[in-house]
Every structure is written in C-alpha cells, then in structure tokens.
C-alpha cells in the first residue's frame, strides 16, 4: 500500500511539473504575442521608429520569457525531486 502511495506521489509530482511547464508556455505565448502585436502596430504607424521599437520589444519579451522560464525551472524541480 505504501509503495503504491509512493508511486502515486511520484506520478503526481511529475504530472504537476509537466502541467506547470505547459501553463508557463501558454502564459508566455500570450504575453509575447501581445508584445509583438503592439510592436507591429507601432511600426506600422511610424516606420522611422522601427529600430527603437524593435529594441524595446526584444527587451520586454526577454522579461516575459524570463518569468516563463522561472516556471519551467520549478517544473523541472518538481519532476526531479
């Protein structure tokens, strides 16, 4: 019985880690998509500012992706421990 509980706990932690990483992917996908949308609309409005807009877009996308990767690391920890 205790071994089945242990296997169930291990299975649950793997499931939790995988679902967490998937949710992080959804979150960062939505976030970076909106950053891209805003950047493309701004470039369409004012093509001369394209370089500055591109630099700010990459910077903000890195912030959002950093947060998503925090969640991925937590998922990896949930699977490994």
């Amino acid at each position, binding site marked *: 019985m205790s071994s089945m509980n242990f296997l169930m706990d291990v299975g649950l932690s793997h499931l939790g880690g995988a679902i967490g990483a998937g949710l992080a992917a959804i979150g960062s996908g939505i976030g970076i998509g909106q950053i891209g949308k805003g950047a493309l609309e701004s470039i369409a409005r004012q093509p001369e500012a394209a370089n500055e807009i591109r630099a700010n877009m*990459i910077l903000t996308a890195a912030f959002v992706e950093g947060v998503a990767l*925090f969640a991925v*690391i937590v998922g990896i920890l949930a699977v490994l421990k």
Partner: protein
Amino acid sequence: MALRSIKFKVLVLFTFLSMLSITATYAENLPEQAGKTIEKEAGAKESAFDPAKLIMEHILDAHEFHFFTIGETEIAIPLPIIIYSKERGLAVFSFGNFHHGHEVYNGYKSEEGKIVAVDATGKIEESIKLYDFSLTRNVVQMLIAALLLMFVMIGVANKYKKNGVNVAPSGFQNAVEPVIALIRDDVGKTNLGKDYERYMPYLLTVFFFILINNLIGLIPGTANVTGNIAFTIVLGIISFLVNLFSTNKHFWKHIFWPPVPHFVKPIMVPVEFLGIFTKPFALIVRLFANMVAGHIVITCFIMLIFIFGGLSKTAGWGFAPISLAFTIFIYFIEILVAFIQAFIFTNLTAVFIGQSREGAHDEDHH
C-alpha cells in the same frame, strides 16, 4: 603581428596536446576492456536507453570532456582532479585513473562523477570532508573562453592603438565595432547618462564574456558553462555589487521613505526592499534557465531518434531526418538566444545601475 603568431602557436600546441591525450585515453582503455567485457555482458547487456540520464550528463559538470563512445571505448579528455582534505592532504591526479567509475584509485572513488574517499576495503568513508578544487570541464572551458576573449580583444585594441580612430577598420574590427557601438549607445548612454564611460568596461566585459561562453557551449562536445547556476550566480552577484556601489541618497530615500500616501507606505517599503534582491535574482535565473532549456531541447530532439529507434529500427531511421531538421532549426534559434541573453543581461544591469543613480524628480517634493 607578434601577438598573432603567439596566438597561432598556442592554438597549434593546444590542438596537438588534445590529440595526444585523446589517443592516450583510447590506448589506455583497450587492454583493460578485454578482461572486463565478459562480466559486463553478463550483467548489463540489456541496459535500456535512458534519455533523462543522458540529458543530465550533457547539462551538468563533469571531470572529463566526453565526445562519444564507440562500443566499449570512450573518446574523452580526462581532466585533473585536485582534492584536499585535512586527514589526507592534497591529492592531484587525472580522472582517467578511475576508468569511468569502475576502480578505486589511491583511496578515492568516483560515485557518479562526485569524488568520495574510500577506505582500504572499498567502503565509502563518511567522516572525511573533501574539498574539491578539480579542474572540471566547466572550469577549463571558462578559462579557455576567457583567454580567447582576451587575445581577440587585446588584438583589436592594439590595432586601434596603432592606427588611431581615423583609419577604416579592417579584419575582425569590422565585426566588433558595431557591437561595441551598440552597447555604448543603446545600453550605456541611454541608461547611464553623462558618465557612462565609467561603466563601459564592466558592461562590455560582461556582454562579451557571456556571449563567448554561450557560443562555445553550443559546439557539440563542449561543456554547458552559462547553463550552470554557479556561473550565473557569480555574474549576478558581481552585477549586484556594481549596482550597490553606484547607489546614491535618492535611491535609498525612495526605498525606505517613498513619496506615497502614508497608508501605502507599510506595503511599499518591504516590497521595494525585496525588489533590490529580486532584480539580480531574475538576472541569474533568466540566463541560467534560457541556456539550460536550449541545451535540453537540442539534446531531446536528438534523443527522439533513439527513442523511436527503440520501438523499431525503421522508425528510428525514418525519424532521423525530421529530428535533424528540427535540431538545426533549434540550433539557429539558440545562436540568436545566445546573443539576446548576453544583450539582455548587459542591458538590464545598465538599467538597474541607471535607476540607482537617478537624481531627484520634481514631483517628489510636494
């Protein structure tokens, strides 16, 4: 010109020595294997393909540069182990003496890459505390990257010193100059204002060091330096210290007595104080997670071939071109991520330093 010939000689010497040590390892493994294969075949002939273990081997640090394994022989460059313990003193020897975890050498044994002290019977001695100063593959690769960076950059700087700024750039200067101009203008001047030149050495160093370590880590067979949390922790701490030593009165005033209504202050002050530490923490984890995730994805795509091959040989062979196409695609993305992560680390360090050095705003005194 003299510098270039020294670089060339060092490169030739390094290549020759590495070839020598690879052949030495190969020759060393051959006679032993004849006796050991019989026991091994009886034991672990049907060892299943374990992708998790192989991925971990690619990501983590190791005491040798392992390139590939042909049958039972491993093509690898063993690295020196330097251990110190109070009871046994200093011990320096090569990792090749362990023969990949099968033998005890001089009272030490390698348990899955970690060196432990064993007594005469082979049992692990728990009481001896070992201080491991070994030259692992991360250390060696980091030193090689640092030396390469110094050679390249000092060469470029000497060219500028010799020719002055009014001569058109030539050779590698052409590649480096726009990057340095980007860091100076977009990162330094916009964030740091008037005396950005004080911080340019640090910002340029951290950018190129992270970049060169990222790029070398993408070559198959090399170590994963920037995907090591210890490396990024040290870089984050150094950025944090540079930031801390550039703060001024207004920064601390904003943290401990922010210009907000009084009932908001008990919430703002702890959050702002924690914010001092979350910013370098984010720098650390962002670089680490991006690099580790990239290496895991590349390794996983290659592992997929073998996982499919475990089902049936034709599935493995058939899937190989698809997997290779994905891997090449991800490789290009990883090269882009290498540049972007180095740029983001530098840019955010500059942004944080700029925030620390801000003067008083007009809306503070009302």
